[in-house]
């Protein structure tokens, strides 16, 4: 008799019982080893819940590293491109980090939880890089991805719902603030952060209390039509927000196989995250050089004519020469625009450049191709006042 138990191929997040109960579509995908929903019921309804009321998105599979030790702050400052000197306890910072060649390994957020504890949250797993970076520093790095359950709770009514849930004073959190609240027998960490460019929070809790948190949010948000949302709805929102994603809009540097496929922060529109005057950080020399010599690519957000998403399109210039490709594209309903993120060869992608997207689309078993004119978008696509307003208002 064999009693061999085969472990499941994919992990389930601590919210799985609730997620699977709500997931009417039964549409799942593998996200960093976890089974996660692509959509729950209807992508449009999910998207509009995110923009008009409140949405729950399970972000447990995001990579979470806990950094402790006397040199934690110095360690992170050397790791990332942004100057972390002013990252006080109770604050969060968005940044990118590079390899020696100045190419982006990942972007993400760093939470200064308490005196000598930081949490780095990102898309990709790169513990080896974190460990190698620790040479010569008194730090301890732990992968706490499985130890922290997390929800992204986004939308205009998110603050109101959290208040109903009993998080007194949560409206006073500024963007990129973080705060702990008692929750049952445990602590709930709340940060005013997100991936939607809207008013919203991310909630961090011990896995044992995950289901209780989900239930509390659903109960408090019942009158607000709070909805769990899947990856597809979030994809529309993040393109609308103008946020890039590792593995989609760029190849994480340490995963690059072919030469020159990765991108520097300047080539991803993240130049504002690079503080070249810091004493020493990974990629500094290469980035200084790039700043002098110029970049190879420009990351551009394009407004594409028509309503067909320019997914994976080639971008042509007026001379009919390919000058780049689209990395993400979506029709974004709130801004009512057909947006595409494109990585273009220099010098293309400047405002005023005449560019064309080659779009293939399928209509009832017939493929068609159109060339649509593109305009470089300079201003934020979606940036409501409520995103940063403090105290956050009820809607």
């Amino acid at each position, binding site marked *: 008799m064999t009693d061999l138990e085969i472990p499941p191929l994919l992990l389930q997040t601590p919210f799985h019982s609730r997620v699977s109960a709500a997931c009417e579509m039964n549409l799942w995908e593998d996200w960093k080893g976890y089974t996660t929903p692509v959509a729950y019921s209807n992508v449009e309804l999910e998207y509009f819940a995110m923009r008009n009321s409140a949405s729950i998105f399970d972000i447990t599979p995001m990579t979470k590293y806990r950094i402790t030790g006397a040199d934690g702050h110095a360690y992170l400052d*050397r790791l990332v491109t942004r100057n972390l000197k002013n990252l006080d306890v109770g604050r969060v910072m968005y940044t990118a980090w590079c390899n*020696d060649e100045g190419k982006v390994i990942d972007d993400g957020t760093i939470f200064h939880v308490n005196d000598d504890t930081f949490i780095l949250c990102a898309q990709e797993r790169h513990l080896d890089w974190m460990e*190698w970076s620790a*040479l*010569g520093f008194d730090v301890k790095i732990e992968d706490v991805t499985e130890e922290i359950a997390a929800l992204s709770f986004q939308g205009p009514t998110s603050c109101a719902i959290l208040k109903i849930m009993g998080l007194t004073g949560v409206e006073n959190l500024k963007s990129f603030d973080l705060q702990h609240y008692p929750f049952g027998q445990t602590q709930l960490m709340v940060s005013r952060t997100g991936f939607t460019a809207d008013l919203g929070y991310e909630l961090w809790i011990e896995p044992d209390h995950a289901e209780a948190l989900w239930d509390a949010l659903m109960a408090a948000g019942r009158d607000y039509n709070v909805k769990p949302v899947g990856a597809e709805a979030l994809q529309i929102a993040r393109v609308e927000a103008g946020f890039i994603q590792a593995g989609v809009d760029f190849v994480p540097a340490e995963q690059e196989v072919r030469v020159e496929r990765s991108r520097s922060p300047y080539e991803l529109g993240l130049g504002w995250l690079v503080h070249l005057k810091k004493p*020493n950080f990974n990629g*500094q020399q290469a980035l200084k050089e790039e700043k002098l010599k110029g970049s190879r690519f420009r990351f551009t957000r394009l407004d594409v004519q028509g309503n067909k998403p320019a997914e994976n399109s080639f971008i042509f210039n007026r001379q009919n020469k390919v000058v780049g490709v689209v990395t993400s594209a979506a029709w974004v309903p709130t801004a009512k625009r057909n947006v595409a993120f494109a990585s273009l060869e220099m010098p293309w992608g400047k405002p005023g450049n005449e560019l064309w997207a080659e779009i293939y689309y399928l209509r009832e078993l017939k493929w068609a191709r159109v060339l649509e004119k593109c305009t470089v978008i300079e201003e934020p696509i979606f940036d409501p006042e409520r995103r940063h307003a403090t105290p956050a208002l009820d809607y």
Partner: protein
Amino acid sequence: MTDSKHIDVVVVGAGHNGLVSAAYLAKSGLQVLVLEASDKVGGAAATSEFSEGFSVSECAHFLYSLHPTIVKDLQLANHGLFYVATDLKTVALSSEGKHITMAGSEIQGEDVSTEDISNYRRFHTQMKRFSKVLASSFTHRPPRLVDGDMKDKLSLLKLGWNARKMGRQNMLELLRIGAINIYDVLNENFDNQLLKGALSLEAVLGSHTGPRSPNTVLGLLYRRVGETYGFRGPTIPSGGMGNVSNAIASSATSLGAAIRTSSPVERILIRDGKVAGVKLSDGEVINCDRVISNADPKYTFSKLVGYPQLETGFSRRAANIRMKGNTAKLHLALEALPEFTGLNTNDIGNRLVIAPGPDYVENAFNHAKYGEFSEHPIMEISIPTVHDTSLAPTGKHVLSAVVQYAPHNLKQGWSEANEEFTALLLDLLESYAPGIKKLVIASELLTPADIESRFGTTAGHWHHGELALDQFLMLRPFPGMGQYAAPVKGLFLCGAGSHPGGNVMGLVGRNCANTLLEAGAASD
């Protein structure tokens, strides 16, 4: 006390390469200050008294590849460099006394077949030819493969051309054997066990490899490079290896360099990504915008610079240099000249080798893989007092032996095992030279742990990093650090960890000095 005099370059460490660098830079008119941690110059090329009245070359004990250009440029003969014995033969010892003797391309011995004799002549010529190709790349900085300039492309082309110029057959043979193990190549060529054992030892000396490890043929070629420089066998300098260093130091001083011993550097100071000076362990700060480190790359980057001052990928490569010291040094003070079974007294001053077969050597290495010392070690023996009586009281002698394998990371730790291993080595010697144990007045065993603490080399590795293809030429000490200049502006490496590598050759020091001078000229 801080010298108010302006200093252009500080050299950290007065190993022979550091001194060569200092001499060349001083010759070019730079103000150079050499700072040495110990109380004498030379690093691992030094002579020390290990017992009252008995002195010995501390680490390296034969000279066989000091570059002639350096000897000439620095006028070392005028500064006291003098050889008491040159072109020594190699005697592969057999415990039964049936030794074989190798001198240049000739081998002698009663059990050596005529086939082996003629094969060795051919093999010797072949190795010399291949070494010459290697040597052609040793006298200048190795080419950079990515983003190389014209000079890089030319030197790469030159290396390729030198290989091609040997003729198609020879080039193919070099490419065939260049990366494989010496064991197979020896078996292809020879029958005699002693011959194969002695050549195996030559190929693996100073490294963490056995004869069946990959690219040990390279180890042999590397040692044979000396033949291109006019050494037809090991050479013994008067006063031991320390006098080679003293001569270079004297030359450097006469050219204007200042040398301070007992001045350990604790830190290389860096400001805004550039060298700002050095800090000594007594707190003294010396300002300068260029520093050459003679310390090994790992020590330089982890201790003197500090990994946090560097970038992660670079630190990772530095931390991953393969350098596990596996070589110990035995010094014996002897009441009288020992007698080796069957060895003519006239031959005792030669290079004596205990490595009675390639399998013996490989088996000796097996232990080292698991943190144990060899039960039947291999030895390269020199009795320098045969040629140089100044090293010991009249009538008495000194025996110096390079011993393998003695891994740095010994399971039980070296403080426990030093005595035990010494006893084992004496027993081994006794089996080749009966009665030698009774002659021993004093002994000293420098294990890799001692070599690390005495000379500061990480893990006690003689060559500051394995000499293997993945750490050779432009890959030495590691990719991105192959041209002496570190990413920190003004920091250079001149130790054996850089191209071409270990042995008392002096070329790393010279190449590094040239690189610094070129860089200076380019940025001014």
